């Protein structure tokens, strides 16, 4: 196949102004699709053949733009060359970190070529969305390169002048480098001063930001996300939020929510996550599940609210993850809660919800104590009182709560009396229970009204 034929798809996409289709021409996967273009030329001739194909293929475009596309496709050819060689090496079982790094480096050159020509206005503004897809592939290649590098050299020596033996060189060196490339692309979008909004690169702000979020999460440098959000919020002349594609908005809100969640700003997290949930495409189960993974623990904290059985049923994975926990909370079953919590721990930790969910044990405890309160029944009616004035008993011996706790903890752990007091004090301190403890009388005196706020008693 000739180079011209191999680039026919690009021409079509270009004339249609279809950024997505154009991006699919530059897709590095599956490797098979790269062969036609790769075979059509060779290292020595690639600049020549691509130049020929572009200048004759795209008639009537500016010389400078043509040069931009030539550089892009020469870069793409070089990257393809490395990808194919890495693929062949893998098939022969001799894939080394060198291959992965070469793929990453050549692909980075490609991204930077795009960036350069978009930045100086040579390539049309809508190419920024193509760049998003190309940059996303850079993220994948960087992760692969880092994995290969980590396999090759698990720990590095430090540079000669540092004081300590193990170098602080990052484990994810390539991905960090890629993150810097992305933030330059982000700046490229943000800094577009074009007064004609319909041609502004600002339309790519959120999708590039999402790419950066994803990268920072992988790098575990979540604090960097905050700067990104701040800089977007500080930008005055952004296009209207609701004109952005839903896909960009939902993902962006999701990340904002998770970031707030991790900073323990649960109210903000809940708003963002709920927004994301409301606009999320109903068919994308995976994404809706991800949103709920954080929204459920969030609601447990903000509203002491457990998810309905119906919603858990809809997502079997979440049912597995939260089902036992939620039903234990509902029953006030501390032993059940501890068991479910310990079983889910690896997954909770992985999802970074472990430390938040731990706090929902309070709700299980609250529910247990509430049962003690209800079981205490009513005060005897005094003279002149009717059934309507009947009051619940609000002075409850500490021993009753202690018994409940010992039963509730499954008998395995011993709970001494001071610990019972401590747990009750916590409930009061956190506002889940109203009243006070009297040590002299070994009693808990609960409020006559609203002893357990929000639970109807």
């Amino acid at each position, binding site marked *: 196949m000739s180079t011209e034929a191999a680039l026919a798809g690009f021409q079509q996409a270009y004339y249609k102004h279809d950024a997505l289709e154009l991006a699919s021409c530059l897709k590095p996967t599956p490797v098979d699709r790269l062969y036609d273009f790769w075979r059509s030329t060779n290292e020595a001739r690639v600049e020549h053949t691509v130049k020929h194909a572009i200048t004759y293929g795209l008639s009537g475009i500016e010389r400078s733009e043509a040069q931009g596309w030539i550089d892009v496709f020469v870069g793409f050819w070089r990257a393809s060359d490395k990808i194919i060689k890495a693929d062949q090496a893998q098939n022969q079982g001799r894939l080394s970190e060198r291959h992965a790094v070469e793929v990453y480096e050549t692909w980075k050159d490609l991204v930077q070529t795009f960036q350069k020509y978009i930045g100086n206005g040579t390539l049309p503004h809508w190419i920024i969305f193509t760049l998003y897809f190309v940059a996303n592939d850079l993220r994948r290649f960087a992760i692969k390169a880092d994995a290969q590098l980590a396999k090759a050299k698990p720990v590095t020596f430090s540079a000669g002048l*540092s004081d300590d033996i193990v170098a602080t060189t990052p484990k994810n060196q390539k991905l960090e480098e890629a993150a810097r490339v992305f933030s330059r692309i982000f700046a490229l979008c943000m800094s577009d001063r074009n007064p004609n909004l319909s041609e502004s690169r600002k339309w790519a702000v959120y999708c590039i930001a999402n790419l950066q979020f994803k990268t920072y999460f992988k790098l575990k440098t979540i604090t960097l996300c905050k700067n990104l959000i701040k800089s977007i919020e500080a930008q005055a002349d952004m296009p209207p939020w609701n004109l952005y594609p839903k896909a960009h908005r939902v993902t962006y809100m999701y990340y904002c929510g998770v970031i707030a969640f991790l900073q323990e700003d649960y109210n903000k997290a809940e708003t963002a996550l709920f927004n994301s949930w409301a606009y999320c495409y109903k068919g994308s189960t995976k994404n809706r599940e991800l949103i709920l993974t954080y929204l459920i623990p969030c609601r447990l904290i903000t509203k002491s609210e457990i998810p309905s059985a119906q919603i858990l049923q809809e997502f079997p994975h979440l049912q597995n993850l939260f089902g036992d926990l939620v039903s234990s909370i509902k029953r006030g079953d501390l032993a059940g809660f501890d068991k479910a919590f310990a079983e889910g721990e690896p997954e909770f930790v992985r999802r970074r919800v472990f430390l938040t969910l731990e706090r929902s044990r309070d709700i299980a405890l609250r529910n247990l104590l509430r049962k003690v309160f209800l079981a205490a029944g009513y005060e005897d009616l005094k003279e002149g009182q009717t059934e309507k004035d009947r009051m619940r008993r609000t002075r409850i011996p500490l021993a009753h709560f202690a018994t409940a706790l010992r039963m509730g903890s499954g008998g395995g752990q011993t709970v001494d009396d001071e610990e019972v*007091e401590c747990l009750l004090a916590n409930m009061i301190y956190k506002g889940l229970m109203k009243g006070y*403890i009297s040590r002299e009388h070994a009693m808990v005196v609960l409020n006559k009204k609203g002893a357990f706020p929000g639970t109807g008693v």
Partner: protein
Amino acid sequence: MALPTTTVAWSNPLQPPAYNPVAARTTLARPPPAQPAAVPSEKPKKVEWTPEVRDYVGRAFEPENTIAGISKEDTTNKLRDVLSYFAERSQLEGIDWSTYPLPQELLRDERAAAWAQAQNNSLLSSPHGPANSTFDTPQSKKRKSQDKTDLSESADASVPPWRRTNLESRITYANGHSEKRHKKNALSGDATSKFDQADLEKRKQRFQLSKNGNSSTPPWNSPKPDSDADMDNTPCVGTNMSLEKSYFRLTAPPKPETVRPQHVLEKTLAMLRKKWKADKNYGYMCNQFKSLRQDLTVQHIKNDFTVKVYESHARIALEQGDMGEYNQCQTQLKALYSQNLAGNPDEFTAYRVLYFVYTCNKTDMNDLLAELTPADKIKPEIKHALDVRSSLAVGNYHKFFRLYTIAPRMGSYLMDMFIERERLHALANISRAYMTVGLRFLTDELQFGDDDECREFLESHGASQAIDKKLDEHGKPQFRVKVKEAASVFESLRQAAFALVDIKGQK
């Protein structure tokens, strides 16, 4: 120990070179004695050479392109290999010869890579490095070179003799040109070094070009420089014998005569431990440990002894509450343990848990929890630390203060870092839940030594008004604390304490 001076070196200009098989020098400091521009006589006759190839061959033998340690013969052989490789594939025209690395450059990189490899391998088995003991004496100049080719080529007049004998040339830097350059300028005050700098720059660019523009480099070509190779990566070998040494931050590659080898450092550690027990002078101790760590680092000593040093320093820093140094050691230990070196990983994992409790760093705590295996979690030290964590997470101060009393090893030193904060937290809690409590109750719950200590704590935290003194029937004073009255005081103190988590030493 005397550093062989240039005069000494000059006096023996014809001795065999004693340098390593690595090309220590990347360029020459001075234009070497004139050398006839060699016409390559070895090239095969049959092929038609293009002007570009001829030019390349010419450049390969130009004196300013000569690299110390790579003989003309080697260069010639390498050149022949390169040319025949491309000739066989009829790719001679496809190569940009003006940017293709010269044969001696290829050789140098190959050797450097091989040397680095050998260094790393030998380091694993012998931390002293291969050339440790023979190194500092003047006789070492007579030490036989390990490189036969270099021996046979000792007449290679292009290498000035002071370069060969200078100690500097033994400390090899895989890629640290700039530092070395710096050093060399300082040593020789060489007027031509600027010229070298420019040369170096040019060479660098050639590499750059060939990397980007030429993908069909032969398979024996040097691996692409990666980040590690960019760094100064070859260990120094110490010769200093004194036990004590003050710490100074390095600004230039260390001189071997200022660095102590491991067997000396081992004695140093033993001495420091004894001294610490005797007079607990932390300022001195910290300084000594930092220089000890530095000496280990520059010699790339990474073994059980290294772990011991870091553990010792971490414990002493912990005892002193120096969280900055402690944290540096902890970071290093984490990486060292991952190499399966001997040590006490459980103990220090537990400290890490407690440290993150102290810093309230949820993200790091989560990452740490993700690392722990089920087997780790039942180790006594780690289990204790995890219990501390969870007791605080659910506000179970009762359990927390019980755990404080039974902290294994040096856990209580770490817990001391946040015990006051947690006492305030518990007090804020108690003051909402009770009206009044006995002082003894607080003493017991918050694990004060005795009632007086507890009272002092309350008084120093602005709650003296709330303490009520009564005499019981035997005339003994009984203290009660009207906690409710001090609730807002405790609450604001608690908030202030948690807002002020000092995380110095954290990167």
